[in-house]
């Protein structure tokens, strides 16, 4: 079901890390600027962050809640491990996406599909602060107020517009705190991140293991 996989993605958000783990840069006044934010994101090392996800699906009476850990390593490696209520994983490594959950495992090529590149690839683009690529794929609306900011992304691709209406990313300083994805069919997914720490400070964080599609051990 590679194509279906490629045409759909939910949003991820990152909450600001604790002050004593990642030192935020002094925020400019009067409000955060998009270029500054992207510069700060580009200068960040890899990180690990816990997430909580709420999926509001049109077919379900109640939202689905889940939680887990996400790892990012520049320039574009991502690993999202859902730990509760059901284990699943999404690994983005280079140009390949690997999925595994209770229904099985699969992979697809990020470069082979506009939709896949526009949706899954966007996380790498955002987290590595690639503003040019972000603008190429999305119409951006950035608003900063003091330390807080909000970025709305609307896909330029018509194919993508059939799937995603918009993505709202919110943050404070140089950190992403919340990401909500609004789908064209009315579904909505909200991700909230917390406890972000640099990957280099995570004990036992072997990059080759964490970002490997066959990784099955306990997470660092």
């Amino acid at each position, binding site marked *: 079901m590679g194509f*279906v996989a490629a045409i759909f993605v939910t949003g991820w958000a990152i909450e600001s890390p604790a002050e004593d783990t990642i030192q935020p840069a002094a925020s400019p006044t009067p409000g955060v600027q998009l270029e500054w934010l992207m510069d700060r994101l580009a200068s960040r090392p890899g990180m690990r962050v816990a997430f909580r996800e709420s999926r509001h699906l049109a077919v379900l009476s109640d939202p689905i809640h889940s939680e887990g850990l996400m790892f990012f390593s520049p320039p574009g490696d991502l690993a999202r491990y859902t730990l509760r209520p059901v284990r699943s994983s999404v690994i983005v490594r280079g140009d390949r996406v690997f999925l595994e959950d209770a229904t099985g495992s699969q992979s697809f090529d990020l470069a082979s599909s506009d939709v896949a590149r526009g949706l899954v690839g966007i996380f790498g683009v955002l987290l590595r602060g690639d503003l040019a690529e972000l603008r190429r794929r999305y119409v951006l609306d950035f608003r900063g107020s003091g330390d807080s900011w909000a970025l709305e992304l609307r896909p330029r691709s018509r194919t993508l517009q059939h799937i995603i209406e918009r993505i709202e990313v919110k943050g404070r300083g140089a950190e992403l705190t919340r990401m909500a994805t609004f789908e064209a*069919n009315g579904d909505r997914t909200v991700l909230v991140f917390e406890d972000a720490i640099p990957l280099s400070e995570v004990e036992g964080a072997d990059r080759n293991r964490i970002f490997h599609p066959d990784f099955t051990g306990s997470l660092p």
Partner: protein
Amino acid sequence: MSPSTIRRIVFCFFAVLCAYSLVRFELNHGLTHFIPSEHEAELVELSLELVQSRLSRRMVLSVGGAPHRDKVAHALGGYLASHPEVAWVETGFHEDRARAFFEIYFDRRFYLASDDPSREIPKFFETDELLRAADQLKTRLVGSPIRGASQTASEDPLGLFERILDRVRQVQLAPTGKNGNFASDDGEHALVFLELTSSPFDSERQKPLLHDLQVEFDRLDALYGGGFVLEQSGVNRISVATERSVRSDIFFVSTVSIIFVCGLFLLVYGSFRQLAIVAMVPAAGFLSALAIALSLPDTLHGITLAFGFVLLGVTIDYPIHLLNHHALRSAQRSVTATVRRIQPSLVLSAATTTLAFLSLALSEFPGLREMGIFAAIGVPVALGFTLYAVPAFLPVEITPSAAQEVLARTFVRIVEGLEAHRGLLVGAGVVLCLVLVLGLPQLRWADDPSNLMNPDPTAFAESERVRERVGGFDSGQFAVGLAPNPQAALSLNEEIHARLEEARLAGEVGGVNSIHAFLWSEERQLENLAAFRQVDQRDTRIDSAFQSRGFRPGAFDAFGNDIDTPSREPLRVEDFENSSLARVLDLLVEMEDGFAVVTHLQEVSSPGSVRARLSDLENAYLIDHEKIVADVYRGYRESTTWMVGLGSAVAFCVLGVRYRNPLRGLLAVLPAAVGTLGVLGLFGLSGHPVNVIGAVSLLVVLGMGVDYGIFCVDSVGKTGGAVSALSSLVISWLTSVFVFGALALSGQPALQSIGLTASVGISLSLLAAPCVVVIARSSLRASGEER
């Protein structure tokens, strides 16, 4: 006409025939040329088209060794995709196929839900089944969000699209690993599948492809750090390797033959000029027959050409007789006088051989008929050449060489010895009878075509290793349904598929790869839709069951709406065209007057049971390609053997009429009978099996044996005749044995078979020749005719 004029005419004759043949040269290689019935021919043709054209064009590459083998395999696939000799390449179930799959099937999911719609679809809506479907959907929704289950959930609560996917997964080329790439079961080898654009036997095209493949692999091996192992399975690779071995075999055989034949002619005649003169006769016969065959509307078959060349080898006797009789002439006379002296024997010999070969024209096999006519044209031309052209090339004065004189003296002693010790003749007869009585019942026939060639052992072993990793549907066993149009073919295929599934469940078949996994008849698809529409309170039932599992009421209204007003027509053949799933249509083959729908089978353990399951379906057949070809070869071999018998009978009748004496007629065919039956008896005793090529080679033994007999019988009563005839036969025999005997040294069973059958058979015929002379002399003396 002066000799120089004749020589000029001969050169012109060769030049014109060569030029004409080159311009018109075209060969047919179809096996159907060797099948008697047209109906069978159609099935065999289909079998060949599938096995030789399609399956034989498949290649499987296996990349093992270092950890990044997937990347190397993927990159190798990417390189090959753009190679002009590669029609398609697949490294896994990737995005383009998945996209095409979704676009073709999702909106048609109700059309392809069940093989048994009236029974199965109402069951989908029973409460337990709906609750199970709700649980499965929720599992998918709770699973990895990126899978996009929520995107299709409201339109497909029953997972109909997943059912289609599961069906297709069962007929994938190979299992896919986590990265979507094809891999061996143990995961140790990444696999690449490809199809060639050209015939795998076209070595001119295959060699560069195999070379390019190796060069690219070496580059990738270095790029990804080395340690990778590439192994290949494909007819082209074995074919190229085998061709290399056959070429070296043929080089060896030709070299040995040429050295021996040149040595022989140098020894006997003291010059190569005689060799050129002798070779000219079969060449003239062959070229004439070839030119006439190329002028006919039907394309000449490759096998006719090859065997025609061998058959016309018998005509080499004619110039040898002429040369030898002239050299050993007892009185001073001209070449023309020698020609006149042996002309009756030559004409009788050629006429008998022509009639014997013409008996092939009565065969029901077009290939044998063509071969008979080919030989029947060539033999008279060779005779005419011997009588009218060869004398113009011979020197005025020929004296016997020392070797000829030794041969002559030896034969005088042999004949005298046999006359003095008649018991030897009786003993020889008894031995022959024993060989026939004991050997013929034990004779084994080998009709498996795979036994005719010895593939290169290294390439073959590698290919087998790769095939084991794939475990695919390439056994050459398949079920076929014939119908006038695609829809009728698909309908028939539904019946075939149902029976083959029963066979699979009964363990009679290991696996079934059918177009049924992808495409059903419109009738069956509309039955599915109708069955969904007929379900009472369909939407209410879904709502009720799914609500109890946490789904919203009315969440699946889209599903009901799609059933009531489908957005797409049923799936048709044309929907696959120009899509990345177009290869699905490989299983629906357009024939001359209809369509064949093909199901590839894996591990057919009980062909009889499978055949019985299909027996009540009109125009449905189980085809075992190897068995079909073996049957064709067996029929061809049996027909050839009968034709040898018929040819011998014709020869006996002709000779009986010519000699007006049954004993002399019998003696004239004796060497041929001893040669053909004796070789079969010896093969029976030694356990050497006889194949179709051996059977055709018996025709050569027949032709040469009859020649031996005629010259022996005709020589009796003429001064020095027997000596000249027998020494001619020895030279002829040595020439044949050097040529055919060298073939027997080949490593290829097909060449070996020609060599062994012909050289042993001709040798036995030669052994019978002095006996014929002795018996004919006795008979002549008894009747007081000897001059």
